[in-house]
């Protein structure tokens, strides 16, 4: 086993250069003033003060979390039945492929495609036009943003739940039915509780990218629909205020760590012996 340990080194080096050092830089920037220059650090809490004193940012933060929660909820509601059907199906491999195929194409490209479809003279409105329905405004709405996010992130949810359902021991269902449980009771008392770890890791995989996503709201939400990811992007690319951008990033990181901690402890509670795998 000892010799395999060396295989870790390349990644470790990579992680130090590409992840740890940039994180430290974010940390440094967040606590300095206008700290674009690396030479003279001045400790300051100005950026944080600015974030929490300006209600605009808090509104944006709240909206981001709201959108991410909405996305996650829809992903669970749509993804679970799909994963369940997949696990029961005779065409498992084909269905897994069907779910994964969209991810072979770049997310950005696919989101652009939605833009085309949801546009006022886009595919969907043209279609609705045949039935005499006036063009509906889809773009720049919460609907479009959530749709884009659910569309992009749902495969992660489906695959996580599918995996947990797939490894469910069939004899447990037989045992439940032996003890008098009908189909619904079998699902509620055995299948569902035992697939909770899958749901939770699915939530982690959907909620995290959703809360910090910036190009989906940008493309489908238009300039009006600002989420926290857009604010961060803006601070770095347009406003050039690296300190403020870093401070917001840090706040997001803290929120994410807290939410991960909560899901983890939830997972532990429902499935104590399987929580660490």
């Amino acid at each position, binding site marked *: 086993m000892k010799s395999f340990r060396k295989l870790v080194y390349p990644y470790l080096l990579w992680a130090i250069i590409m992840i740890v050092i940039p994180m430290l830089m974010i940390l440094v920037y967040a606590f300095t003033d206008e700290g674009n220059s690396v030479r003279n650090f001045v400790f300051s809490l100005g950026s944080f003060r600015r974030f929490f004193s300006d209600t605009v940012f808090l509104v944006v933060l709240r909206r981001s979390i709201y959108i991410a929660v909405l996305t996650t909820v829809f992903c669970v509601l749509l993804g679970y039945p799909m994963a369940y059907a997949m696990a029961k199906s005779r065409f498992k491999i084909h269905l897994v492929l069907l779910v994964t195929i969209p991810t072979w194409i770049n997310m950005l490209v696919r989101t652009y495609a939605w833009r085309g479809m949801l546009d006022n003279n886009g595919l969907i409105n043209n279609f609705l036009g045949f039935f005499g329905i006036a063009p509906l405004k889809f773009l720049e709405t919460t609907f479009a943003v959530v749709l884009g996010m659910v569309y992009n992130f749902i495969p992660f949810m489906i695959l996580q739940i599918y995996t947990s359902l797939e490894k469910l*021991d069939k*004899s*447990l269902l*037989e*045992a*439940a*039915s*032996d*003890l*008098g*449980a*009908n189909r619904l*009771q079998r699902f509620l*008392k*055995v299948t569902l*509780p*035992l697939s909770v770890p899958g749901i939770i890791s699915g939530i982690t995989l959907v909620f995290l990218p959703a809360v910090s996503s910036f190009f989906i709201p940008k493309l489908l939400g238009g300039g009006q629909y600002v989420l926290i990811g857009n604010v961060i992007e803006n601070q770095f690319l347009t406003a050039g205020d690296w300190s403020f951008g870093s401070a917001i990033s840090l706040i997001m990181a803290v929120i994410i760590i807290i939410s991960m901690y909560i899901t983890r402890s939830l997972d532990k509670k*429902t*499935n*104590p*012996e*399987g929580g660490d795998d």
Partner: protein
Amino acid sequence: MEFDGQIVLKGISLDIYENEFVTLLGPSGCGKTTLLRILGGFLDATEGQVLFDGEDISKVPAYKREINTVFQKYALFPHLNVYDNIAFGLKIKKEPRDIIEQKVMRMLKLVGLEDFGKRRVTEMSGGQQQRVAIARALVNEPKVLLLDEPLGALDLKLRKEMQLELKKIQKEVGITFIFVTHDQEEALTMSDKIVVMRSGEIQQTGTPIDIYNEPKNRFVANFIGESNIIDGIMKADKRVMFEDKVFDCVDSGFGTDEPVEVVIRPEDIDIVGFNQGKLNGTVKSVLFKGVHYETIVETRLGTTITVEMSVYESKPVCNQAADEEMSANDFYLDVTDIPELTKADIIARANAQAWKSSKDELVSITKVEYDIEPKKGSYPVTFHTAAGTMMSVEMIVEDVNKVESENEIIYAVNINKDIDDIRESIALDTDLKTWANAQAWTADGEEPIAITDVEYDFDQESIHAGKYRITFKTRGYEYKIDTTDEHNVGEKVGLDFTPDDLHIMKLSGNV
């Protein structure tokens, strides 16, 4: 009953009564678990009915049957603790909380796990999980409890404990247990009734004592305990002939001169002095088994044949240009082998091999040239590799060398072998059989007979070039006898038994 297009169970008809401990016994794949799953409602039979208290329940789903199951790997719910696992069925039936608690506590007490209610099932040992599984099934007060090899995963000591415990529980709750196992000892210990199954058919149903003492056929006799099974002929009621002698027995109802099989259990035979028993023989082997010695006595020798083996030292042919070497030896054939001779046979019998000289890497022999006629003589055969290395040896065709006895024929040919082949052989007995093409058949040539002994008087490691004699033997008439006294191998002894030690079975074909 068909499963994946294969018929798994056929013509099963079985009555099971209240409060019975019934064991379905058979080797794996005999359909016992399938039968259990049909009773439990997890499989539908393609034909036939399952009657429960006179009602056909074939179409009743598992969850509505008054039957509970203890699964092979227990199938405890990993997300629930011991208490909730046991309470599962009661909660489904929406029984009041206090009743549930009462019943679960009673069950925990029955299986001796009073203090384990709050434990996670995944933290428990195999034996404890087993008890939880039994409690979880019994708490629903089923009329029948099905147990699918529930003790299979436990170690020997625990298994014995659980056997007694299960029997005790069954007596206490007074319901029918249907128990599946492949362990005959388990079946004998626990059951009121044993159902012996094989290839989806019931072979015999009866009490443990019936099944042990009066097996219906060779399969049952062999599966339940050890037994000596001898071919015999029924001369008259209560008179059976085997080993050319007529003996008294207690069975009747067979036709005159009907061929039968005679079962004698190893513990029913006594070893007495030579000429003092009913049969005479020689002690062939003695094996210490703890409580007793398992002594094998041979009453009649098998058929033997002796061949000559010429051992020589050979140098392989060297082909320096291609960096290859090749070796092969002359070999003997008998006339009857020739029509069926293939190139692969020739390569095997000549032990032809080619390899790279510099590396120890085999090279394939691509061409075998030979010309042979079906009569005595010596014929050359040449082996080639792709790189052009070649070697010729002789195939020596001789008359058939065989020894015939009353019911057997044994064949073998002389051997010509390189000294290294013998030294390097990993399984010399098997190799000698292959090289000599030693085979034994029944007199009618229908069935092969195993050659059990290969005898020779050289030492494999230190053999020199020269001529050696090798003898191949088939098994004679052997009796396995359990004795408390130790006998010496080679000792001449007599065998004794009483008429009721013999059990006569109808012939049951090949098993």
